[in-house]
């Protein structure tokens, strides 16, 4: 299998795509980001973004059956952290990022919040299907709300 492209000097994490794997990975990643200077508000936002991304991979890309995820973080030195997330699950529907619009709260929705939250709380996000892999590239803020 070809090695996935990752930014140079990146911190890499191997994650099992299941709820417990996501929890364990978030603990390690958030500790690393805080050590790298992540502020309190930005910490809250980054944790929500990464939780939603990883949970979506477990639930939708792998359909709850589990599978590997590779995550790499790299500080860009301009107040942002670049995050690359790769999985070998199903592609995004229609090969594109899901809708960024928040569901209407009056409809008492029980889901559909994940991607709108990711879009609101990250500084940028891009998706590519690379052969049998999905790659998300996220830009997280080191300082924020």
């Amino acid at each position: 299998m070809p090695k996935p492209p990752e930014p140079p000097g990146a911190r890499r994490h191997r994650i099992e795509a299941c709820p417990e794997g996501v929890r364990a990975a978030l603990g390690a990643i958030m500790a690393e980001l805080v050590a790298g200077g992540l502020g309190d508000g930005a910490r809250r936002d980054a944790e929500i973004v990464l939780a939603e991304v990883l949970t979506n991979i477990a639930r939708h890309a792998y359909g709850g059956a589990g599978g590997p995820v590779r995550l790499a973080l790299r500080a860009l030195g301009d107040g942002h952290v670049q995050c690359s997330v790769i999985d070998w699950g199903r592609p995004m529907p229609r090969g594109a990022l899901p809708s960024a619009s928040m569901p209407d709260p009056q409809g008492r929705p029980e889901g559909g919040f994940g991607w709108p939250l990711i879009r609101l709380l990250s500084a940028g996000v891009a998706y590519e299907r690379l052969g049998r892999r999905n790659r998300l590239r996220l830009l997280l803020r080191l300082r924020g709300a």
Partner: protein
Amino acid sequence: MQISVRREGAALVAQLDEARLDAAVAIQFKDRMREIAAGAPDRVILDLSRVEFLDSSGLGAVIAVMKMLGPERRLELAALGPAVERVVRLTRMDTVFTIHAEAP
């Protein structure tokens, strides 16, 4: 999934004794709240003072519990920490739930 239940006047207060309400515990939370709701009065207050992290799965479970209580009983939220409050506000669910700064 540990939830402590107490009565405060006419309301039932359910305190979630977990630091995270996320995809890992969303189903257990709903199941436990279903048992608690079975004998609950008209007003149920969910005390989230110990919850430090809420994701969209956890929020979806809270909304499912509100719907489970039916139109005649209310679910209110109390003691939201900064991370929990951020998710509730961004999803505009603060327009649906009555939110108390502190649990009674």
